[in-house]
């Protein structure tokens, strides 16, 4: 009888402990994401500029970040880890569209988003986004890291190339972007 009580109390205690640890991790993750949300917006705008499912892909990136969060071990800064996972996810989503093309009817809201985009296309931000949109997936990843003030070492680490080569690629992409911006 005593043993049964002991087991029940122990199980309640461990469950509570487990829940409190989980909720602590969840809260920590939510706080970190809230403070870095701008990064995710930029990545979504770069990879899914005119995609009516941009919100969905943003959500998918959040989901994959949460799934990968246990593997974040503070070896790099949170933003470096966030960029790595988010860029991988964005590129993965685009690549896998070759296997499952999305054929879902657009709602009125999604049409409105498209109209809204056309109206603000003249702005500088959109010009830059449209120019970046003409780059390849890898070039997009490199240039966003450069524009976000990451140094060559960090860019090389996220992309998986040498520091020297990161510099070479950045110069090439910058030249390409300037050409697109200047000549439309």
């Amino acid at each position: 009888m005593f043993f049964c009580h002991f087991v029940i109390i122990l199980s309640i205690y461990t469950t509570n402990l487990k829940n409190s640890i989980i909720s602590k991790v969840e809260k920590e993750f939510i706080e970190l994401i809230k403070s870095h949300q701008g990064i995710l917006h930029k990545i979504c705008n770069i990879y899914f500029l005119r995609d009516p499912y941009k919100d969905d892909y943003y959500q998918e990136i959040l989901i994959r970040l949460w799934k990968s969060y246990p593997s974040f071990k503070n070896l790099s800064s949170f933003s470096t880890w966030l960029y790595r996972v988010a860029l991988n996810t964005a590129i993965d989503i685009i690549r896998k569209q070759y296997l499952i093309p999305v054929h879902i009817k657009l709602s009125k809201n999604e049409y409105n988003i498209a109209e809204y985009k056309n109206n603000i296309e003249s702005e500088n931000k959109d010009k830059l986004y449209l120019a970046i949109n003409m780059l390849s997936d890898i070039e997009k990843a490199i240039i966003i890291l450069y524009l976000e003030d990451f140094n060559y070492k960090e860019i090389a680490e996220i992309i998986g190339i040498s520091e020297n080569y990161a510099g070479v690629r950045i110069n090439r992409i910058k030249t390409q972007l300037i050409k697109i911006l200047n000549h439309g």
Partner: protein
Amino acid sequence: MDKNDLKSMWKDAHYTNGEINFSKVSIEEAMSLKHSKVISRSLLDVKIKVLLYTLILIIYVGLMMYAFVYLRLSLSVNSLVPLELVGVFLLITASSEFVRLLVLTKTADNLSLKDSMLTFSKKLKRIKTSDFIIYMVFFYLFTILIIYNYLTDIGGVKNLSWGNNIVPIPLLVILILMLLSVPWFIKYLDNLRYKKLFSNLMDSISQLNDQSDTTGC
């Protein structure tokens, strides 16, 4: 425009203009999901197909077992071949959808972009190879079974002749050749199906490998 203007342009754009609002997407809600709506809907389509084809395949195998093992039905090659071809078709459709699901759910987000691509391409190659080997084993065994059945039907190798009543030998040879070529045909179809995905991957990897002209810049 100068190269250094890009950074200032980027900064101006993000400090002066507000971000496009993603307020509809809740972080808490995302944490409770396996995939976003649009991705899970696409995956669900594939899962339903896998389930449906597998279910039909199981029913088919069950019926065959019932007929041949429980009822001890004995059919000649003539009647067996069309039945087996239905099974082959079901197996191909079920497994190709399953492979597609495997490819769609494989990810390596924590690695660097290049490593992630290399890992994914290795996984893709492994999936394609194992798929090919499974088909090869299945179809080669199936061919052996058909030859064995045929020889049993005609009463041994000694009765082998061009003009027997069961199945004419040229037809049997064509059937065997067809069966032996199925794994290669599936490999061709797989290559075709994953061609764009694979070429995109290879293109991205080669972009990151291209270090030959680094001195030129």
